[in-house]
């Protein structure tokens, strides 16, 4: 499920490049967030043959991360700049990849899925229904309100009410600050415009240098990541 509100053509190149043999769907209104408690991507949900969830939404990958060439270059350049800017004094901040690679183990996650595929309900990774509910994301009333603001923002953005949409995006982010999908969706819309689109335009999720005062959101990807410790972005649930 591609959680992107901008229409099929934004997701199409990724789906066509992957040549999926499985259903590959679009989720423009982020139903995965509201119905399953997805708060970041990639997130994975396991459902057994009877339609019972046996693992709720959690970070998961199909194997070791493989980035396209353009993304590898971008990450390498970022790591170089982070190293350049690192102060010699005081504790050293983890760089972006250290922050993103902490937590859930990317390399062994597919082995857990294979274990379930082979052993079914006897797999040690299968949770009971009570465990599934308890391990799903917390949802106080604030999170319901955040989802309602997100849905309004999503609708208003797609119908051309840009300022009103940004107002609701900001309310949504304030009410559910740990929902990265709501944030990244919003930041990427404006970030993509600022860099003029392109293959990786939607990975620009903050103001360009010198345009900080013109960024319409209360925060940005870099500002939020700077507050994290390894393991907090993709928590280990295994």
């Amino acid at each position, binding site marked *: *499920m591609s959680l992107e509100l901008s229409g099929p053509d*934004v997701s199409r190149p990724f789906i066509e490049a992957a040549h999926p043999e499985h*259903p590959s769907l679009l989720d423009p209104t982020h139903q995965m967030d509201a*119905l399953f408690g997805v708060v970041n991507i990639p997130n994975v*949900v*396991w459902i057994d*043959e009877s339609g019972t969830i046996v693992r709720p939404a959690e970070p998961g990958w199909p194997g070791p991360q493989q980035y396209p060439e353009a993304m590898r270059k971008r990450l390498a350049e970022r790591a170089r700049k982070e190293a350049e800017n690192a102060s010699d004094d005081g504790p050293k901040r983890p760089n972006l990849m250290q922050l993103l690679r902490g937590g859930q183990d990317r390399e062994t996650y597919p082995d857990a899925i294979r274990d379930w595929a082979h052993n079914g309900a006897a797999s040690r990774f299968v949770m009971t229904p009570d465990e599934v509910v308890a391990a*799903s994301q917390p949802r106080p009333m604030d999170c319901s309100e955040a989802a309602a603001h997100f849905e309004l923002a999503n609708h208003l953005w797609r119908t051309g009410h840009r300022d009103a949409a940004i107002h609701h995006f900001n309310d949504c982010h304030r009410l559910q600050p740990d929902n990265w999908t709501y944030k990244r969706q919003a930041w990427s819309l404006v970030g993509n415009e600022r860099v003029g689109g392109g293959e990786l335009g939607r990975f620009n999720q903050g103001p360009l240098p010198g345009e900080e005062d013109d960024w319409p959101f209360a925060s940005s990807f870099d500002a939020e990541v700077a507050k994290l410790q390894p393991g907090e972005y993709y928590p280990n649930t295994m």
Partner: protein
Amino acid sequence: MILEQLVIDPHRFETETGWTIKPEGACKGDVCVPLPDRDDVSDIAGRLGMALVHDDATNLNALGPESLGGRALLSAEAPELVLNDIDGNSFRLSSLRGQKVVLVAWAPY
């Protein structure tokens, strides 16, 4: 769920929230919540713990998902999910019953 008017259409309510309006109330999985006044959206929202947010500029409302139970999942029964593929073909998650399913949420950002 976007509402142009504060009226609940039961079919749409079930499709978008997973809650079925039955004689005994609003039901999802094993949980049924009595609804004394089915025409009062604010009352329904309050009983299910759904936030109701209004946009002044467009006069639209949005109903958030239930917070009843305090977790994203009220039960381990997978909710129905109906989405389109990139060619506009509709697909129902429940059509995969009888198979193990791994749902993967991703995004191009």
